[in-house]
């Protein structure tokens, strides 16, 4: 009897400990749920794990695919529910896991599209597995995934002499995968409030797509992709490239010192691709290989795309009888590499993604037996996605008149603040002036003097204040719920632009017209821009990284 009582106590002790351990695990395991660039894989995978809809197409691959294909756009354009399960540096093992998981959970995609960038990944990196393994549920496929990962790193990290050592380490890594607390317990010193509130996916609407609304087309040289034909010279700070008689250069700081660029496909990845093909055939599913465009030198980026790689993939795809579409070399998507990438050609931004998605959506509809079907889950998300796309559209517009037209289009939902610094009049074109008039401004922009100051406030399309002056201007007002203070000065000694909203400075304070756009519904600043209309070539430049993330947080139902 006494013995029995002891056992009950021991079991009760353990029983209470289990939820405590579970809670600690939830708090301490990074949830990767921030909508910040690629840190949102947790959101995407969680959504995929709980997806009830039957999707028609599944996109897989690395961050190239993640930032290039928007399932919601395909749904909007073609009416086909799809999902993008690409993750940064997704290896073929992880791709196979997702595909197996998809079929095992009773989904019946008709096409699986894989970005072939994964075929060239050789190094096994823990993060690429952790993103996935820490988020998905424990089942047979996850155990296989962990086993495959350990098998891969065993060959890579340990030689025969270290068998006992490697055994012990691999065991600990296994435990770390199965019980994330074992791996992440030491994160207690970097916890923040987000870790204590479970980030929900209720409003997640991107369906795996990671949109980036900034533009960075610098360092792009379209000829650099022909690596094998390049001649490279280097000086102290830059590499010089000569191709077709032209000279290009790249900062050394942007170049890895030991490039690990491979032209040939790793045999293990080919084996994995074969297995994926078999899985697809077993499930009457089509497999399509694509290459999302990347425009970077192999010297600076080991996932860049070259003709040599393309040729090798074509050989493999022919051999395995899997169709392959090279969206860089074989298709003209009409990409503008100065504006359609956010990181110098490595990944497409929202504008580039729109083009790539449009092409892929059409291609899939034309070449596969896909049926348009309405889906309540996707329909519910369209509204959020539209808002997202609208804001991204504003943030990605670089032509000044077009930008003002966009603001005008949505003016009912916006507060627009303008403040000029230095000079804004020298290169204002008639088209610019017309666009300024179109949004409701009445100043005589055509007769502005050099270094005139300018401020304007528009609320829901109504001009609250507007003024051009040859002196410094300051204007304080309460607009909606906001206390605002605008300053503008063209005087060369004290030239400035300031747009304070509730005490926080938003103006980029650069030469030309500084513009801040405030969304009334969300209560967030959604764009900070400047257009240097002093200069003849004037594009709108945006600085919105934090603002865009905040807005995405808002759409996801967090904060605000």
């Amino acid at each position: 009897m006494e013995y029995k009582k002891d056992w009950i106590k021991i079991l009760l002790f353990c029983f209470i400990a289990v939820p405590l351990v579970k809670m600690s695990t939830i708090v301490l395991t990074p949830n990767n749920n921030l909508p910040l660039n690629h840190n949102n894989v947790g959101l995407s995978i969680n959504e995929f794990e709980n997806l009830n809809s039957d999707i028609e197409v599944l996109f897989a691959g690395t961050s190239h695919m993640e930032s290039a294909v928007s399932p919601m756009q395909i749904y909007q354009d073609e009416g086909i529910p799809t999902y993008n399960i690409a993750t940064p540096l997704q290896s073929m093992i992880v791709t196979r896991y997702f595909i197996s998981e998809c079929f095992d959970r009773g989904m019946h995609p008709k096409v699986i599209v894989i970005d072939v960038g994964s075929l060239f990944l050789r190094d096994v990196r823990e993060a690429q597995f952790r993103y996935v393994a820490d988020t998905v549920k424990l089942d047979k496929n996850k155990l296989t995934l962990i086993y495959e990962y350990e098998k891969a790193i065993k060959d890579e990290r340990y030689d025969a002499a270290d068998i006992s050592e490697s055994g012990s380490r691999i065991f600990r890594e296994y435990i770390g995968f199965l019980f994330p607390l074992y791996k992440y317990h030491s994160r207690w010193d970097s916890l923040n409030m987000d870790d204590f509130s479970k980030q929900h996916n209720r409003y997640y609407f991107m369906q795996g797509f990671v949109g980036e609304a900034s533009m960075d087309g610098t360092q792009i040289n379209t000829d650099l992709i022909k690596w094998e034909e390049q001649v490279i010279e280097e000086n102290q700070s830059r590499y010089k490239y000569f191709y077709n008689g032209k000279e290009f250069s790249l900062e050394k700081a942007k170049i890895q010192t030991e490039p690990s660029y491979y032209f040939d496909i790793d045999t293990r990845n080919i084996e994995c691709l074969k297995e994926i093909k078999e899985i697809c055939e077993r499930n009457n599913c089509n497999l399509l290989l694509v290459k999302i465009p990347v425009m970077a030198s192999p010297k600076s980026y080991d996932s860049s795309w070259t003709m040599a790689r393309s040729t090798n993939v074509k050989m493999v795809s022919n051999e395995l009888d899997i169709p392959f579409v090279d969206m860089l070399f074989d298709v003209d998507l009409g990409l503008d590499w100065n504006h359609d990438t956010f990181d110098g050609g490595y990944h497409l931004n929202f504008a580039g993604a729109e083009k790539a998605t449009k092409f892929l959506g059409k291609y899939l509809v034309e070449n596969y037996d896909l049926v348009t079907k309405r889906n309540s889950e996707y329909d519910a998300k369209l509204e959020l996605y539209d808002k997202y796309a609208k804001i991204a559209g504003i943030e990605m517009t670089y032509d000044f008149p077009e930008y003002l037209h966009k603001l005008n289009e949505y003016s009912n939902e916006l507060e627009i603040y303008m403040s000029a610094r230095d000079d804004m009049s020298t290169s204002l074109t008639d088209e610019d002036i017309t666009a300024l008039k179109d949004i409701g401004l009445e100043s005589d922009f055509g007769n502005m003097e050099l270094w005139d100051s300018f401020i304007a406030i528009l609320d829901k399309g109504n001009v609250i204040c507007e003024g051009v002056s040859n002196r410094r201007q300051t204007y304080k007002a309460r607009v909606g719920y906001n206390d605002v203070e605008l300053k503008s000065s063209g005087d060369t000694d004290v030239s400035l632009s300031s747009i304070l909203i509730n005490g926080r400075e938003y103006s980029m304070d650069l030469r030309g017209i500084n513009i801040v756009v405030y969304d009334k519904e969300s209560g967030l600043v959604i764009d900070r821009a400047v257009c240097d209309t002093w200069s003849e070539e004037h594009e709108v430049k945006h600085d919105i990284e934090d603002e865009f993330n905040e807005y995405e947080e808002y759409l996801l139902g967090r904060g605000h």
Partner: protein
Amino acid sequence: MGFTSLVFIAFLMIVVLIYFQFKKNQWIILLIASLIFYLTWGVEKLPFIFLSSFVAWTAGRIIGQKYEENDRLIADLRNGNEEYVTDGDYKQKISKAKKKSRSYARTITIIAVIVLCMLLIYAKVGELFLEFMSLDSKVNIIVPLGISYYIFSLIGYVLDCYWRKEEYEKNFFKLLLFAIYFPKIIQGPILKCRNLIGQLTDVHEYKYKNLCYGVQLMLWGYVKKLVIADRLAIFVDTVYADYIHKSGSVLLVASVLGAIRLYCDFSGCMDIACGFSEIIDIKLERNFNHPFFSESASEFWRRWHITLGVWFRDYIYMPVSTAPRMMKLIGRIKKRSGMSVAKNIGTIIALYVVWFLTGLWHGIKVSFIVWGIYWGSIIAASVLLLPVYKRIAGKLKINTDSHEWHLFRKIRTFFVFVISMIIMIPENIKVSLSIFKRIIIKFYPWELVDGTLFDMGLNRPNFIVAIVFTIVLYLVSRYEERYGMVRDYIASRQIIARWLILYALLFSIVIFGIYGPGYDPSSFIYMNF
């Protein structure tokens, strides 16, 4: 399989479950478990412990049988001659028999002790020898796990058999179990056979109280090891690895924290060993008794690594002090300079022998020998200068019963230990001297408060955690110094309070422990000795 690995925890659970299922063969289960544990450290290490145990067992058996034979002979003589009390020839016969058996036992003892010492020397000097002969790249020296601990235990066993303090063990495997018993094999304690072997071979019943006490002690041990020692180790190792670029203030902090780290590392391991043994109803002797509350160097060594101190006292200090040659020497000095001087010289010689050997026990290195001489000198000075200290205290009118005086003595003893750490831990004595020099010459006190300390492997939150748990450790030790064992106090509380304490310990380890992929679970500092 280190004490801090998950496999070890699983192993312990399995051993406990099987242990209480097969009550008749509990010692066999422990032996098998110990062999498995030992095998996980490498099969090549096993022959050494078998050989050592066999040497000790054979010697003990021969000595014991000789004594038994002699006892029988004496008994026969007694039975055959009732007039033995007055019979001179008979007395002579008995004396002769005794002498003969004693001499025979001494020879066996010497041979066994030499063989055992040879094995120890092999482990301690082997690598140095190969290095000296430039053979280190061609030949590998196998360093058996825990050899310093089990060889000392076995030498103690042989000597106790010789001195007839111990009954010889007839069953080789039981003596092997005494040597290899896994909770004590890594870092001791160094136990006497008569105090352990009975417990190991007895039948033990499962007791809930033992389970609770044992688990509690193990958790406390893990807190000391994983939360405090391994956390402080990050800072201490970072600073010592680049001591040349560190200021004296940082080195001093690292040395003080290094002392706390060493205590938590070593005593944590002991708590884990004692805790597990307690679960299966085996009481291991305490190896630590809050050493940082000591007020003198000799008291410190009665509280730190107690079983090693006892071993040296029983098997080195006492035999050296009472050896015939020593007695002759003391007699001669007594005639010339008086009793007090003679007694002191005898004590000092024995002390230096003990501390020289204690230094060597840690390893064959100049710094260990210097370390031994340092402690020998400190203790000898405290013995010799005691009257002087008393006179000074009297003249300065220091109240030696005051709390402040006791506190001063404790801090002084702690820093005596810190200095010994600086001698012992760095790779060689030159480094130690350089560290001393930097502490004195390049002491920048502002570095203690300007955040410099947080750039050396341990950030601010981790530093705070280490300090908070060290304070908890201090409070527990202080309570035990004043009122008795904390565990008895905890046991007297209601179940909710008891469980809360257990959960607090458990989750302190789970969250604040230094473990996981990338952590080396096999490392305990005293394993290396």
